[in-house]
Structures are given as structure tokens and as C-alpha cells.
């Protein structure tokens, strides 16, 4: 079930955020709050899939919105607000991961992402027709965990482009604007990322457990 298509992107016409953005630029904090509420799930999801930890992802997502707020006066409206926000979020995630890689990792946080007891299960597909049985539910949670694990094993660039495309549902053009590359680069990088992930999930697929 390809659920959530409607919530992946705002309306395609003119920028639906322009009015809120103008008010926020004029200093209306409530208008910015409305923007935060509109995009918090997107930004948080991107951060979570990139860093792999909910607490850390929340910090990263908060920082993204603070950066956006600080840079709002520089937003000229030449692109959509969502694209601009995605650019900030993408770069901030990559910078955060680079900074984290330079820091020594405390031993307690080592181990495959998503395997800890403290790590809540990732969201899984919601069944359109009735509730999944608990055993199905857990199987899907397990699959989601393994997919997240395979994602974490990719390079940051590959992970980012997969999240932007497959989870956030951005077009090639939007991805190009968000990460600052040509559309042709998006196309080739996305293909390499998909093939790399397929390799990572190969053992899982051999069991036939990926739905």
C-alpha cells in the first residue's frame, strides 16, 4: 500500500506557504509555528532516517527549524519554502553526521541502529484493510528495523537521496534543488543508492521475508 501520498507533498500550484512565510518574515512567531507544524513530520523523518536515533533526530530537527527561522529574511521566494527547508535540512543532517563522525563514539551507543531496547520500532505500513495481527505487526516491525539497518550501512549521500525520494516522495528536480546537484546526478546517484541497498538487503530477500 503506497499510503501517505497525499501528505508527502503540499499542493503543486503556487507555494502554499507563501502567506505564512511572509507573516513569519514580518516577525509573526505564530505564523512560523504553523510552518513548523506543517513540516515537522518531514524534517523529523529525514533526521531520524539519517541519524537513526529518535532523541538525536529531534535535536537535529529542532536545529533545522531554528536555522530556517534565523535565515528566513534571506528567503526570497525563488523556490518553494518546502524546497528551501529541505535544502537546509539535508545540509544540516550531512554536517551533523560529519561532526559526529569526528567525535569519539561512546561505547554504549555502539551496535546496529534499531536493535536497542530503547529504540522504538519505526513506523510501518498501516494496513488499509483492518488491523494486522500482532505477529504480522511484529514481522513488519522487524522488516522495518532491518531496512533501517541497511540504510544506515549506506553512505550518507546514498541514504539522503533514498530518504528524499522514497520516503519523502520528492521529485528529481526537488531533490536536485535540495542537495544542490544537477538532475542527471540525482538520477545516477539514486540508481546507485538503490542498487547498494538491494545488495545490503539481499540476505533478507533470500528469506523472502521482505514483503
Amino acid at each position, binding site marked *: 500500500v503506497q499510503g501517505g501520498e497525499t501528505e508527502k507533498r503540499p499542493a503543486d500550484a503556487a507555494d502554499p506557504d507563501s502567506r505564512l512565510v511572509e507573516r513569519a518574515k514580518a516577525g509573526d512567531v505564530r505564523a512560523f509555528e504553523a510552518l513548523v507544524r506543517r513540516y515537522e513530520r518531514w524534517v523529523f523523518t529525514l533526521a531520524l532516517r539519517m541519524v537513526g536515533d529518535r*532523541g538525536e533526530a529531534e535535536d537535529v530537527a*529542532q536545529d533545522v527549524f531554528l536555522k530556517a527561522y534565523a535565515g528566513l529574511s534571506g528567503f526570497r521566494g525563488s523556490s518553494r519554502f518546502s524546497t528551501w527547508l529541505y535544502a537546509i535540512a539535508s545540509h544540516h543532517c550531512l554536517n551533523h553526521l560529519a561532526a559526529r563522525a569526528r567525535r569519539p563514539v561512546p561505547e554504549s551507543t555502539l551496535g546496529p541502529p534499531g536493535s536497542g531496547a530503547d529504540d522504538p520500532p519505526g513506523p510501518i505500513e498501516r494496513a488499509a484493510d483492518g488491523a494486522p495481527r500482532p505477529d504480522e505487526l511484529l514481522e513488519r516491525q522487524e522488516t522495518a528495523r532491518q531496512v533501517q539497518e541497511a540504510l544506515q550501512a549506506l553512505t550518507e549521500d546514498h541514504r539522503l537521496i533514498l530518504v528524499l525520494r522514497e520516503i519523502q516522495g520528492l521529485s528529481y528536480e526537488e531533490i536536485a534543488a535540495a542537495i544542490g546537484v544537477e538532475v542527471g546526478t540525482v538520477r545516477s546517484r539514486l540508481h546507485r543508492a538503490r542498487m547498494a541497498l538491494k545488495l545490503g538487503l539481499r540476505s533478507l530477500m533470500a528469506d523472502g521475508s521482505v514483503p
Partner: protein
Amino acid sequence: MTCIEARDAFSDLYDGILSGPALTAMSRHLDECQACREEWRAFRQTVQAVSRLGVDEPPPEFASRVLARIERPSWWRRAARLWVYPVSVKAPLHAAALCALLVAGWWMLRETPETERAARLDAPSPVTKPAPSPPPDAPPPSVPGKVGVSPRLKAEAPLPEPSVPAPDAKDKGVPETKGDLRETLPEAPASKAAPPADAGRAAPTLPGPPPPKGGAPPKALAKGAAPSPAPEVLRQSAAPMPSPAPRAEEMQFSEKALPRETLRGESAARRRDAVEPAAPSQAPRRIEKPEATLPPAGMGATRPSASRAPAAMPADERFSAAATAFAAREYAKSAEEFQSFLAEQPQDRRAADARFYLAESLFALGRHEEAAAAYADFLKERPDHRQAVTALYRQGLARLARGDTAGCALLKTALERAPRAADAAAKEALANCP
């Protein structure tokens, strides 16, 4: 088309970019080549598996925290701002402070005999000696300016004596007043008010499952629930307030009730730290008097508002009432309130939380069958909720408590996901499993 060319074009095929002769060639190749067909299937499954991860919900209070950070600059920025006040602001402030000090010093010296006497007694003063013939040209060298004051000093010297009993009289007065207060306000309200406050403090270190009826007392709620003893005041003040207060409470609330601290971990603790504790409720005295007439704590005492359950309440109010009842361990009331909340606000963003805590309330009441159903409802609606594993775990316990061995599988799976949650209750329940 070769196999390599075909596999290089998988993404284009998947995204619908392939067309014309290329598409025809690809379909023909996939028809003919079994290996590439297998690869294509695996490719599609991979991409779909990532899509199925879906969008994640941030914590409910996420936006409020962002706003709090925007509206409140960091402490070092505020300190820096204080430090670098412009001279135009600082200079008059400093001048005014200096003037005030000087005036105060002068006034003290002039008006307070003790100070003046101390100043004089520091130096050997001729005033204290009954010298028959003081030399008129020999004023005390240390304080020459105060010679003229000495007669006045003598006259005022006894003054401090009568002023000493005054504080005593006051000291006596205070206990009397306190005694009166104690009489009018018996111990009951104090002890009744105590558990929520204690509970609030204990909560961060002692999260835990609500025990079945008659078991050990459940671990209490987080700080946000502390102001709960003032439901009436809260209702009046919280209703027009759109977001922050209820949201903070909700956040604290939703982080309770994991089987052990292990289910929640560091990230939750960090989130909790990021939120300031809710301010204690105002006007506590308004509450104490009505509660003084209630039976003592532990006898099923209900709050003044417990008996009234109006037909329809604003969402925040209803949720707050339910959360307050849950925090106060009044599970019958919290179950009822959460049920009302869900009936009135099925689309509310806190509906999933409400469903979960409804199940928790029923579990705590020992209504295991209803609890198991409620956990299942919750999981059906929000399988990705952060309390999902907890819900599985408790659903397992609830089923086992009714002798339903289907609970074994649930419990085992939940414990596989959160091994450190294996507490005594879980082990005991698992002992009955095949």
C-alpha cells in the same frame, strides 16, 4: 539489450522515465532473461521496503519546543546581553545606584543611634566618662564632626532597650497565628496534597507499569501531573489557553508507563530534560479548604470535580481531567474520562495517547479482557507508536492473566524487542507458558 544495460535502467523503469524503444527493449529482455527478472523483482521490493518505512511522528510537543527555543535566547546570549548593555543605559543606572547607596549610608548614620554609638565607642570617647572638667578644646580626634551629637546620644541611649522586646512580641505572635491556621486547616489536605508532589519527583526515576488492582502502588507520573490537585482552577485557567500547558502535560504524560526505564532510555530522558517543569498550580489555598472536608487520602477520596462529568468538554479540558485522574491513580475515573475523550474527540492528535492510557487504566483496574482489547485497538490504530512495544507487552500480560496462552507469544516478542523490560511479573507470567 544486454543484462548490464537492462540492470542500469532499472531505476528509469521504476520511475516511469523509460519510454519508446528503450521500454520495448527492456520488456523484451525481461521476458527472455530469467536472471534479470529475478533482479528486477528484488530491485522493486527493495525500493518498496524503503517507502514503507513511512513518515515518522515527532514527539507531540516538538513544535512547542522549537518555539520555546526561538522565543527564549540561550542563557549565555542573555548573559552577554546584560554584560554589554550600552553605556547610555549603564551609566545612569550605575549613577542612580551610587546615589542610592550614599543616601542610604548617610541616613543610617544619622538615624540609627546604635550605628553612631558604635562609631563613637570605637574611639575612646570622653562622653562616657563623667569627667568633671572636660577640656573644651579636646574633641575626640577620630570623629570630630560628632561632638555636637553627644547629648542627643545620651538621651537616646535607652531607646534600643524597649525596642528589644518588640521582636519577642512578634515571635510570640507568629506561633499563635500558626496555631490558628493549624486548627482551621487539619492535616488531611496536606497529606493529600503530598502524594502528587512526591509522585512528580519520583516519576523520572521510577517509571513502571500500573499494577493490577490490589498490587503494589503504581509508579507515579512525571512532573507535569504535579499540579493536578487543582483541577477546578486548572479547568478555569486552561480552557482558553490554546497549546503550551496541555501540550507540556501531555508530553510528560506520554512518557510514563513503560514497563521499566529500559523501554524508554536516554533519549526520552533527554526530551524530558528539555522541557521545563510545569509551573505549580496557582492559588493552592483555594483548594485546601474544600479538600479539608474530604475523607483522608487512601479511602477512595475523589476530587471535587470527580462526581461531575459534563456531557461535552473542550478537548484540552477532558484530556487534562483524564490525565490528572491517571496521575492520581484514580484509574476508574481516568478510564471513564479517556473513553469520553475518545468518543468526543476521535480525530484529536492525542487520540492514540488516550487509547493507550485507557488501556493502561483498564489494566491497572484488573479489567484484563477490556484492557487486552484496548491495547489491540491502540496497536491497530498506531502500530508505529512509541508505546507500541509496551502495549504488546501488557497485552500479553493481560491475556495471560485471563488464562489465554496467546499472550505468551505477545509477551515473548515484546521482550525480544526490549529484553531489559523482563521484570518479575513478566518472568512469572512466562512460567505459565508452554
